């Protein structure tokens, strides 16, 4: 069963001199039920644009995004997203932050509380339920953001570089918690990342996007088991093969220059 689908999606942003910049063009792919797909590409290739279209925040210029078989016509309860920024509300306690989505969607207070308690327990945050965000470390705050995303029980999670702002060691721990949470809840996820290793160890499939105008140029199926255990996956001998293929597709390491440092149209 297909949970998330992009059909020939394009996005054109108007610019100052009346023209337009095509951020993405002809993007088509689908994500099946319970599948985790990583999306990787050079910066500015429109990865986040795809996410905004999927969550219904902005309509695409052409094509269609579909969730659970329905075309996305605006923000809906089937999709929830998580960004690099934790976006926790400083005036709400940790538990109240996790309850935000349910509250907005009109769930009863006791139901919200029950969900929040359960998720905080899963992420070992129960002791911090009544703390305020400024009292927590960056890694813990990001974990709260993940709990808040899961609390609305979405069919599809859209994750935009969720761990790129935390330190390397915390990231390793958070990656495992994410993998376990996705497995436990049997969630479908689209994970945008810059980190090639993260893409390989967390997903069932990696999609590679080209530079602007972004489109999918490669699809790599990750044939390592144990998706819920990124620790174990890291040690698989297959990982380096996938990573060199990704580097190849992204043109990293050729001609001795970093493609991200090369001048790009803005």
């Amino acid at each position, binding site marked *: 069963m297909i949970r998330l689908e992009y059909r020939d999606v394009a996005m054109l942003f108007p610019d100052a001199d009346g023209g337009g910049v095509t951020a993405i063009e002809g993007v088509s792919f689908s994500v099946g039920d319970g599948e985790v797909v990583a999306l990787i590409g050079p910066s500015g290739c429109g990865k986040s644009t795809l996410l905004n279209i999927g969550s219904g925040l902005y309509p695409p210029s052409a094509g269609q995004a579909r969730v659970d078989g329905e075309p996305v016509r605006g923000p809906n309860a089937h*999709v929830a997203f998580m960004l690099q920024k934790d*976006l926790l509300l400083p005036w709400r306690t940790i538990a109240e932050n996790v309850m935000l*989505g349910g509250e907005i969607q009109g769930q009863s207070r006791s139901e919200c509380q029950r969900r929040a308690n359960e998720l905080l327990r899963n992420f070992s945050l129960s002791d911090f339920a009544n703390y305020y965000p400024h009292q927590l470390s960056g890694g813990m705050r990001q974990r709260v953001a993940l709990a808040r995303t899961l609390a609305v029980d979405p069919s599809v999670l859209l994750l935009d570089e969720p761990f790129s702002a935390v330190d390397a060691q915390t990231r390793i721990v958070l990656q495992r918690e994410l993998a376990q949470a996705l497995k436990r809840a049997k969630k479908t996820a689209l994970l945008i990342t810059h980190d090639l290793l993260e893409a390989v160890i967390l997903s069932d499939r990696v999609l590679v996007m080209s530079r602007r105008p972004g489109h999918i140029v490669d699809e790599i199926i990750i044939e390592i088991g144990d998706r819920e255990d990124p620790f174990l996956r890291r040690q698989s001998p297959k990982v380096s093969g996938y990573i060199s293929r990704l580097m190849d597709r992204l043109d990293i390491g050729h001609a001795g220059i970093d493609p991200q440092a090369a001048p790009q149209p803005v």
Partner: protein
Amino acid sequence: MTTTSRKTLIRRGSAASLVLLVLFLTAWEWGPGLLKIPTFIVPPASMVFQEFVRMLSVNHLLYHTAITAAEVLAGFALGSLLGAVFGYALGISPIAEFTLSPYILALQIAPKVAFAPLFILWMGFTVYPKILVAVLIVFFPVMVNVLSAIRGIDPDLINLARSFTASRAQVFWKIEFPSSMPSMFASLRIGSTLAVVGVVVGELVGGNEGLGYLLTFGEGQANTPMVFVCILMLSLVGGLAYVGVILLEQRVLHYMPARPLGGL
């Protein structure tokens, strides 16, 4: 900051403040005499205190103070309420901001206290023109701060709420309104002191009630101690309003990291 170091800070700071107060009062009491300044220019502290006691019984000092305080409270409350309402409306609707901002800017540039005689012409020697000057003077800092707070909210935060299918009203009450509280309170602190300025100017211009009236009365009689008493009482009114705002702020912004004495 640990609890002990905070306690030490408060204890040492309070002790130093007290020493300063004693030094100041001493200088006020005996300084003018030593420097041969006549008492009708700078009356010593004891003379001002005697005048204070005399005014309590003869000039109904507490009555006039209460009138001024009530005007300050009414002007401050109304002015900040209106300022907040306009700030939110303009922050939420770019069209409203585009349409109204030239007029608001024009009114902002005009010196608000200059309206006092006009308001007295309109409303007579009542409390209303004084309250109105205070409303006008408090309105702007509150409106500008609320507006810029709304403008400054991270759009991703709004998008987060929208992605949870929040309605416009939910975005306002769950994200925008609480986000604006720190800026709102910063402007209320400013507003609480400005309200006193507005009321006093109104009372100076016309009327026979309030501390501003006593101030001109004392001036007319060349009663310098009386002028001093009025200035002190006005500062007391302003100080109470300011402390009131800080106490409210500590309740509302309880989630913020603590600052000693509420960050006076």
